[in-house]
């Protein structure tokens, strides 16, 4: 049984249909990448899975249960957490407070302490800057805060929306390495990226979105080798 299943999921913004019949699944332990151009519906898909965008059709099934109508804040309790597009670091909170927001719904103090250590292990930079205010950090550091914060929920499914956006190349490498590491520690990852090369080479499987539809799917390697994808997303003629 898949951890996450989207069945013919549709989302409308007013009268405009943003997603049409998105069907995909993420197995426990996988990294699955969604790639596509701007406006293809990647972020909308993430928002719908997290519950901050209502469905106009189809369903979201998590761990065998239909959560299509479940409130967004309760989906976090079920085990879905997201590092959103644009990072969404709380600008007036310190790094520590931002991370504490990640475990807002949790009460298991001992496990929370472990997760703080884990996050500081993955991102030593955050440990050095615990009391720095989010709004004053660089883009790369904010991305670390956003991912670390999402991990503080101890999610079963981690949604990462454009973790490489706006980052310097050495940061991009580092972020993707860490995503791989998080996955190897047992967290299932659904990753949205414009950086298709990185996203597909790190992923078990991928889906290609075009104007709100899934147009192609396969393993990361298959998609990387696909000539039409090479041309459209990898900048290779």
């Amino acid at each position, binding site marked *: 049984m898949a951890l996450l299943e989207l069945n013919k999921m549709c989302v409308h913004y007013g009268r405009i249909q943003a997603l049409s019949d998105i069907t995909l699944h993420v197995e426990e332990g996988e990294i699955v990448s969604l790639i596509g151009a701007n406006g293809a519906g990647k972020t909308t898909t993430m928002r719908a899975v*997290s*519950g*901050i965008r209502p469905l106009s059709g189809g369903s979201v099934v998590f761990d065998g249960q239909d959560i299509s109508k479940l*409130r*967004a*804040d*309760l989906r*976090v*309790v079920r085990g879905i*957490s*997201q590092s*959103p597009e644009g990072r*969404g670091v*709380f*600008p*007036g*909170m*310190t790094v520590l*407070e931002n991370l*504490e*927001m*990640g475990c*807002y*719904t949790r009460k298991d103090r001992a496990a929370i302490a472990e997760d703080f250590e884990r996050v500081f292990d993955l991102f030593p930079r955050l440990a050095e800057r615990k009391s720095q*205010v989010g*709004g004053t950090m660089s883009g790369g550091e904010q991305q670390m805060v956003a991912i670390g*914060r999402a991990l503080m*929920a101890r999610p079963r499914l981690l949604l990462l929306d454009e973790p490489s956006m706006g980052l310097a190349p050495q940061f991009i490498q580092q972020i993707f390495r860490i995503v791989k590491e998080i996955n190897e520690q047992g967290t299932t990852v659904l990753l949205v990226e414009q950086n298709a090369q990185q996203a597909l080479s790190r992923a078990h499987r991928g889906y290609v979105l075009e104007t709100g539809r899934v147009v192609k799917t396969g393993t990361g390697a298959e998609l990387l080798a696909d000539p039409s994808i090479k041309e459209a997303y990898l900048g290779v003629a």
Partner: protein
Amino acid sequence: MLAQAEDSWIDFNVGLFLDQFWSNTVDGLAYGSIYALIALGYTLVYGVLRLINFAHSEIFITGAFGAYFAMEALGLKPGPTARLGILEIIGFLLLMMAVAMIISGVSAVVLERVAYRPLRKRNAPTLVFLITAVGASFVIQQLFFVSRGANPEPALRLIRPTEVFTVFGARVTNIQLLVFVAALLLLVVADQFINRSRLGRGVRAVAQDPVTATLMGVNRERVIMLTFLIGGVLAGAAAVFYLLQIPQGVVYNGGFLLGIKAFTAAVLGGIGNLRGALLGGLLLGVVENYGQSLLGGEWRDIVAFVLLIVILMFRPTGILGESLGKARV
């Protein structure tokens, strides 16, 4: 003739201003702490909803009526100050506080449920919220008018003002000291709650980025309810302090000007900023007293609002500026 005409509408009484400087400061701080307590309600709700809850002044007066009737029901009679032992006074005072805080807190939450939440569910534009707020304010005010009439209730005097000590010759009464210290204490508690507790962190998260806050598992509706509750409870406390300080009893429109002043205080300090509400409230209380002694009683409100306009010209975001959205304190 000319000189007399000029004289009759504006006159700087520097001597009186200097004479009364310290007593005006003391009075201003005591009255300003009431502004500050009410201002916090405006600021918190603004921070979370970007809404100016104009009905907040009526939440305040509802608490004042509540405390008043509770006292009456307990046998406190209008007229000269009741002869009570110190323990009885403390008991009455605590009871009054409890009643006013509960009534104001509950009515703030009910107001939110009845007036604002339905609009939020339908994604109403900002203007609709604003008009609803103004409308709710008038409805509550007129309900008190219809049921209690235009005349103030007879004053209930619980504490006889007596001098506790003097500051540069200005007397500080027991009531002023009590009000100032208690208000400050409540504001510190509120500030610590917002900045240190888990729920307070949730409030700040919603103020800074409501969508991301939801992604963290924060229930935005619950946070909104909480901010109305805190604002209401503090307005209830302010209502009791108000009853202690005013010479007459509570009246249906007693919240109106006070509410606008408190709102002014919130903007003055930087709307959305908790410490700004405190600073703005105290500053406004003091400055309008200075204006009153310098220019005469009828200038009190003019001075208050000119102060607001001048400060906003130089610091459009208020003295402490940053909103609850950004403030890190």
